[in-house]
């Protein structure tokens, strides 16, 4: 078993279309000594991850084009907002899990809305955590086990991807905010 190098700085890719949210999440991540790259859209995230040029990212095809555009920079975790114009956080999650080269990167979803079906779909699609906004230090502290677990060797396979029709981001009722993530046991 490889020893965990404690000096290694984990690199987190944060995705959110709101500048304020990006500032917040960036600061939260930096206080945990993570290196942060923040982008304002799912498309920019895919671009950064080298997935945008791929015609076919299904597990059956050989990922030739992925290696061609693959960044030298390593991303250890992706944290993304759910509701974004263009491609949603869920779409981004799905594309990452369908990519042979990136599917083992832990993905965390953030949302300002507590919609159980949304939370379940994201978790079923392979998200490690679902944080309710505003994200706090206590949430960010939950990222470390996921980062430690996937550092070095690959882990066991994820569950098969289930595609469910996603409900809209907008015009969903506001619910009383519940600290869902506090109850989440992983």
């Amino acid at each position, binding site marked *: 078993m490889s020893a965990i190098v404690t000096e290694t700085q984990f690199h987190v890719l944060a995705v959110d279309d*709101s500048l304020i*949210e990006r500032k917040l999440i960036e600061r939260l991540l930096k206080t945990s000594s993570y290196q942060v790259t923040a982008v304002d859209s799912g498309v920019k995230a895919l671009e950064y991850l080298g997935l945008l040029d791929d015609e076919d990212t299904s597990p059956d095809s050989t990922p030739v084009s992925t290696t061609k555009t693959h960044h030298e920079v390593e991303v250890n975790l992706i944290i993304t907002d759910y509701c974004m114009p263009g491609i949603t956080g869920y779409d981004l999650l799905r594309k990452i899990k369908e990519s042979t080269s990136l599917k083992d990167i832990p993905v965390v979803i953030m949302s300002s809305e507590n919609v159980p079906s949304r939370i379940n779909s994201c978790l079923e699609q392979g998200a490690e955590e679902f944080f309710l906004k*505003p994200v*706090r230090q206590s949430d960010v502290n939950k990222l470390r086990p996921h980062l430690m677990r996937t550092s070095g060797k690959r882990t066991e396979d994820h569950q098969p991807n289930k595609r469910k029709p996603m409900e809209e981001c907008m015009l969903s*009722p*506001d619910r009383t905010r519940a600290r869902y993530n506090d109850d989440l046991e992983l």
Partner: protein
Amino acid sequence: MEVDQLQRTFHHYHASLFNEGFLDEQFVQLQQLQDESNPGFVVEVVSLFFEDSERLLNDLSKALDQENVDFRKIDAHVHQLKGSSSSIGAQRVRDACIAFRNFCDERNIEACLKCLQQVRQEYLLVKTKLEALLRLEQQIVAAGGASPM
């Protein structure tokens, strides 16, 4: 000593903002993210909130003024404003946004206009108070004290 007096004023004012519901726990979270390595964090985020809010309030005004009101667009703007106000702990603005969204669902223009007025009012209130708070912080630091944030 002047600094002590200013510090006392700051703490009283700070406490009142929470007691009166203008700010909630999230603002404390923001303060905790400010330190010697990031001394301007709260000012930075609050300034962004002001810019963002003013833009969104203008967009909302225009959107409600259209002949064919696009409620999806309005909801999207209010959702954004709800998000940013929630992120900085501007509780009353956030709550006003929640009420606003319910009327968007009902596609009720009159009610939406009233909600916009309400949101704008709450925004202007919290803006005034945050500016006063930040000014106090500035004065303390200028007088040689440590930031109470």
